[in-house]
């Protein structure tokens, strides 16, 4: 069997140099996705006229089309319609694309999480003189957040892996670097296994973080 374990170990330091870029893409895209997703969820939950219909079209479109197609639409397609977009670099396009796509998924998760909070909680807030905004901020959103975390975590893990699609726009990230090293050394299995292990490790570390967060947030609900 032709497997060079020593070579595989040697490539890790080079690959890990690209980890920060992958992390930046994933975390920045996730922050935007959470913000947009929450807005969409509040709009759909409260059935805000006009915005509600628009939000549904947005969610439907970005959930139903392949991420790769969306990225190409943004990076290669938009500059054709709006020349000013040609100034946008590949990394920005990737982050925008991943934010939009994942916001559509998160919107559905957040809406379900908001629905899972008993309406009596809002009524109790209003009954002691809080405004709806205060009720959401102090009581409803914290409770919904706890319900949203497991599914949102799945979305984040998916997002981390999707950052590898940025390579198709020419972003020199973790997977792109692996591909270059593989073409140079022709040790495909070693390189791609190493790349896979980096993603795997990242997900394991994240899962531990999420577990800790879940424990912390569910403290009030444990007997």
């Amino acid at each position, binding site marked *: 069997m032709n497997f060079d374990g020593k070579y595989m170990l040697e490539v890790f330091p080079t690959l890990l140099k690209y980890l920060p870029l992958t992390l930046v893409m994933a975390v920045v895209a996730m922050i935007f996705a959470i913000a947009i997703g929450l807005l969409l969820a509040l709009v759909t939950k409260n059935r805000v006229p006009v915005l509600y219909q628009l939000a549904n079209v947005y969610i439907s479109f970005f959930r139903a089309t392949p991420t790769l197609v969306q990225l190409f639409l943004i990076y290669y397609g938009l500059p054709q319609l709006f020349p000013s977009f040609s100034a946008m670099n590949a990394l920005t396009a990737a982050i925008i694309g991943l934010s939009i796509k994942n916001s559509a998924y998160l919107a559905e998760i957040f809406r379900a999480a908001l629905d899972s909070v008993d309406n009596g909680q809002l009524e*109790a807030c209003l*009954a002691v003189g809080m405004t709806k905004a205060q009720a959401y901020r102090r009581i409803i959103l914290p409770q919904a957040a706890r319900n949203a975390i497991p599914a949102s975590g799945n979305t984040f893990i998916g997002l981390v892996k999707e950052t590898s699609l940025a390579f198709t726009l020419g972003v020199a990230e973790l997977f792109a670097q692996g591909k270059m090293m593989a073409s140079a050394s022709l040790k495909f299995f070693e390189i791609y296994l190493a790349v896979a292990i980096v993603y795997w490790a990242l997900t394991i570390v994240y899962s531990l973080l999420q577990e800790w967060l879940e424990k912390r947030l569910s403290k*009030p609900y444990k007997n």
Partner: protein
Amino acid sequence: MIKVTNLRKQFNDLVVLDGIDIEVAQGEVVAIIGPSGSGKSTLLRCLNLLESPDAGRIEIGQATLDAPKYSRKQAHHLRQQTAMVFQNYNLFKNRTALQNVTESLIITKKMKQSEADKIGRALLEQVGLAHKADSYPITLSGGQQQRVAIARALAVDPHAILLDEPTSALDPELVAEVLQVIKAIAEKRTTMLIVTHEMAFARQVADRIIFMADGKIVEQGTPDELFDRPQNPRTQRFLQQISAPASFIS
């Protein structure tokens, strides 16, 4: 003081409140009784606009509001005149007992944490739950949760407290502790509107009983008048029905 004039509410074709007029004096305790579906809970929920009335005027404390057209600000102002105790307690699940009581003080009255805590602890003491201040609702029994909910309602120092079947969801052995707390508050001349099925309690604690059926006030009077000498046949029938099970057993 509460004054309600010609209050109307309809759910689709069903008329739930068919022109209700009520006046409650400062410090008066009024119990509302009646068969289920008579509109008594809806009436209470219209007073703090958890249901929006179709017509009528509501005056509570310093707030006056004419349904159905009112601004968000008016609604908020009216809600701040009252506090509500719910059938299902509805304690904030992500807050401790103490935080449940202090939340509104800190958020709506902009009180300092230390000041709010002092008031909160005193109120928990009053409902006999000082030792549970740091417990989360899920660890409390139904009776304890409802007592915290009563403390939460008292915290905002409302013109009136609206109690919507406060003991209906409780196990029978927990009813007494909650009624006792309500009775103690009633004795302090807190204005209260209580929707209840506990007739003996209503008789004991209320200055006036209102009997509702089919969205209307059928009859009202002092507990003695209404329970012992009901005038309206509808009231007589209702009181007979609720005492029927006991005679059925014997």
